[in-house]
């Protein structure tokens, strides 16, 4: 999305979250965790869910299709009560694949009633340091001006649903 952002009038801004961790592992292992079926299924989660990768096509423009299935009894009950399915299909599209250093993918959030689908971009950067491998995840939300503005104000959305469902 590289429209010419007209300076001044357009308030198209992004929300951004950055999270960093250092792991005592090799960069190749960490990369594998992010980019292989077995790797992803072993940790993606969230807690109380099992992730099954249905298809993975690791190249720019390729997709990762996976299903998150609630396995925890309490979680299943919660989902049912909230009228949500207990298995959720997800799709992400790779936007950058530079082994073993950078992995970009975008996820399309299209499940919020009354809200135009919007895109969430993720960039994962791996860097070898003295302590191991530094993993930096940067998440950007592309949204329309209104919601962006709302978020900047610290208001934002009803993301009970997002946290439970998005998890991707």
């Amino acid at each position, binding site marked *: 999305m590289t429209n010419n952002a007209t300076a001044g009038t357009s308030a198209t801004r992004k929300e951004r979250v950055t999270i960093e961790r250092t792991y005592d592992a090799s960069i190749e292992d960490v990369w594998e*965790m992010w980019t292989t079926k077995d790797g992803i299924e072993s940790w993606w989660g969230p807690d109380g869910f099992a992730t099954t990768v249905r298809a993975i096509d690791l190249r720019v423009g390729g997709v990762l299709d996976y299903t998150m299935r609630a396995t925890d009894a309490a979680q299943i009950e919660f989902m049912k009560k909230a009228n949500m399915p207990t298995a959720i299909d997800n799709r992400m599209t790779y936007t950058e694949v530079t082994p073993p250093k950078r992995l970009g993918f975008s996820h399309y959030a299209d499940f919020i009633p009354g809200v135009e689908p919007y895109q969430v971009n993720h960039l994962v950067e791996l860097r070898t340091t003295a302590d191991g491998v530094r993993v930096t995840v940067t998440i950007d939300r592309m949204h329309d001006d209104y919601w962006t503005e709302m978020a900047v104000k610290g208001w934002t959305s009803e993301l009970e649903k997002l946290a439970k469902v998005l998890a991707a």
Partner: protein
Amino acid sequence: MHIDAFEVLADPMRRRIVETLRSGERAVNDIVERVDIHQSGVSRHLRILSEAGFVQMRPEGTKRVYSLKPERFRELDDWISRYRVLWEARLDRLGAALDRRKRDREPTPPRNEETK
């Protein structure tokens, strides 16, 4: 009665009305001047916003003055903190998975420290 906050705010005209109230309270006719639809339309949207708890009204003489109810907006959760929590947990699990993998790989694992 449950009104989905997103549905209420997804309407572009209602967003514009909310925008006009951001700088402070306004009388209905003042709002009508700032969004170019008829008063009846504005009133209808204000009623919906009001029912959903986003705005409140007080009479001032013959006028009806509307303002935002910030609490309602705050109730809607903070996206950033949600996402952070989600990813913190996820990266914890990645660490645990890496540890498991390392253990599985070690040909002669060092004795577990279960003797305590």
